[in-house]
């Protein structure tokens, strides 16, 4: 017996925008997976498929002047922060049109224009960075928030502990966004944390918490709006746990020995796009044609990006040493 889906507590236009956002990520990453098969994209590729509601809900809650710090699983965050699919895709191809001119690849997307500070391939590596960005805002009297995304696996790292304490001690405006997808590579949360209630940990730094259904983009968005406001008002950090799930393997090398297919299937029933679409349809805000049109637009956007990346150029190997140091006038 299925209860009728809860109505979406957002304006229709916004709701449709969130859906479109999730579709963009989904289509973009499906394309990436295919391009990986074609060896156009190499290195590590960590897909966000299944978790789209988190980035899709949080990003529109942030202001343009806010800063964002993410992980190696950050295509979605980069796209929704406003980076063009072309620049992201070209980066994954290793082309000079890429946001980092091919230096970074999938795990290291950066964008100065949107204050997107990466793209960090060290688990927990972004946390102290976010604390410092918030410190700079505080010291310069800027009313801003730094949103820091990280997986639940990072919670075991010393970097988490030190960063939470520092942010709380100095009351810095960091919005800690923990994407709890239950696994760190093959390690389930219960096999990495003695205390699996992550919010209980945050409380031990005196940091207020929110636990959010990360499969429900509307819930994520509302929580993110609330959270950002709370950080701005208190000037102090907040820890938000988004409970979510990745539908794909950890990376393209992962044989997924550590979890049951049935578990994955169960979570897929709660798929963020699937369910949100159903709710919008149920309340008459979306027809099947409209859905297909949104999906087509996302696909088109991705195709354009991938064609542009394909047509892009290689950075000359002679420029290898560029950007190790900032150029200065000769001595």
């Amino acid at each position, binding site marked *: 017996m299925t209860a009728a889906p809860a109505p979406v507590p957002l304006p229709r236009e916004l709701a449709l925008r969130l859906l479109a956002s999730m579709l963009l990520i989904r289509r973009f990453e499906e394309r990436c997976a295919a391009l990986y098969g074609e060896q156009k994209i190499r290195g590590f590729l960590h897909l966000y498929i299944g978790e789209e509601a988190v980035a899709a809900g949080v990003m529109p809650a942030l202001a343009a002047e806010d800063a964002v710090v993410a992980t190696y699983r950050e295509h979605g965050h980069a796209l929704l922060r406003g980076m063009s699919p072309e620049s992201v895709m070209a980066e994954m191809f290793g082309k000079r049109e890429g946001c980092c001119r091919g230096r970074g690849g999938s795990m290291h997307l950066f964008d100065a224009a949107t204050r997107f500070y990466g793209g960090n391939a060290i688990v927990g590596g972004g946390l102290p960075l976010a604390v410092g960005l918030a410190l700079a805002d505080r010291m310069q009297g800027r009313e801003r928030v730094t949103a820091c995304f990280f997986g639940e696996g990072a919670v075991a790292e010393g970097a988490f502990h030190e960063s939470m304490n520092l942010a709380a001690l100095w009351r810095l405006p960091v919005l800690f966004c923990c994407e709890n997808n239950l696994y760190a590579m*093959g390690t389930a949360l219960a096999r990495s944390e003695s205390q699996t209630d992550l919010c209980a940990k945050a409380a031990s730094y005196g940091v207020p918490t929110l636990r959010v259904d990360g499969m429900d983009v509307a819930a994520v968005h509302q929580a993110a709006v609330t959270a950002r406001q709370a950080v701005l008002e208190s000037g102090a950090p907040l820890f938000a746990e988004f409970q979510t799930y990745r539908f794909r393997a950890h990376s393209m090398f992962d044989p997924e020995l550590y979890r049951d297919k049935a578990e994955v299937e169960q979570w897929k029933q709660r798929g963020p796009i699937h369910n949100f679409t159903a709710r919008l349809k149920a309340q008459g805000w979306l027809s099947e044609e409209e859905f297909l049109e949104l999906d087509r637009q996302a696909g088109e956007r991705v195709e354009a990006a991938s064609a542009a990346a394909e047509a892009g150029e290689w950075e000359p190997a002679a420029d290898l040493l560029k950007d190790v140091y900032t150029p200065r006038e000769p001595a």
Partner: protein
Amino acid sequence: MTASSYREALRQAHREALARDPRVFLMGEDVGKYGGTYAVSKGLLEEFGPQRIRDTPLSELAFVGAGIGAALGGMRPIVEVMTVNFSLLALDPIVNTAAALRHMSGGQFHVPLVIRMATGAGRQLAAQHSHSLEGWYAHIPGIKVLAPATVEDARGMLWPALQDPDPVLMFEHALLYNLEQELPAGAGEVDIRRARIRRPGRDVTLVGYGGTLEKSLEAARILAQQGIEAEVIDLRVLRPLDDATLLESVRRTRRAVVVDEGWRSGSLAAEIMARIMEQAFYDLDAPVARVCSEEVPIPYAKHLEEAALPQPAKIVAAVQNLWGNR
């Protein structure tokens, strides 16, 4: 002789060690349920159980430190730090405890611990996942540093490393796991004190290790076609260095090129050059040269990554230069 991959050889070595000594256990991130990031430990959890194949949380500092404590407590831990890149988070226990404890305690304690990690670039994993920092570790008194570059060494270094009373670090170049070579049926323990001449030659000595051995051998094949017979030395042991094998060769060939994936400045290659300078200066017909990584965080794009790393063509050019140099 049967063909084996470097990965399988390592797995066999683990299996043997675990079966032979109940004090041996393996711990690290995803060594168990996931089957090992590089699949080295695949199947071991099923075979030896969760007490002896221990998945750790993402806590490099604590589980390396715990490895030290467990060694002190009478165990023979193998700690896998997924890659050298993450070992930066565990340098404090390695340098300040594992390496120093025996000396600080006036010889009362010693730390029979093996720490394994993948190292090196070449898979387009970009700046944070492509370090070659084994040269750093080779700087630290109190530890020993191994770099298996062949399937035989992958098979045979673990057991003697576990027999060593002091901490031994093993660096496995990530590109080697798929390497296939012949292995004698009863292959086991190898010597972990000496470098090895992998190809004899009279005209020049190429010094490589780990990921640069194959590249050096490839360069030697190309040079041979040009009439230059290169001797190729595989260092195998990065600390303590086997000066004798190295110098005997260089005194004979009177010329050398060191090939090292570490960044040029402050590389292990510099140490090899310094030792040759100190001990064989008057035997040299030309300055020793080196082929190292360019001084840049390793970039993602394939052509840029290739340009950043030592390659056979660069080695060949460096050798040719030894004659045209003056």
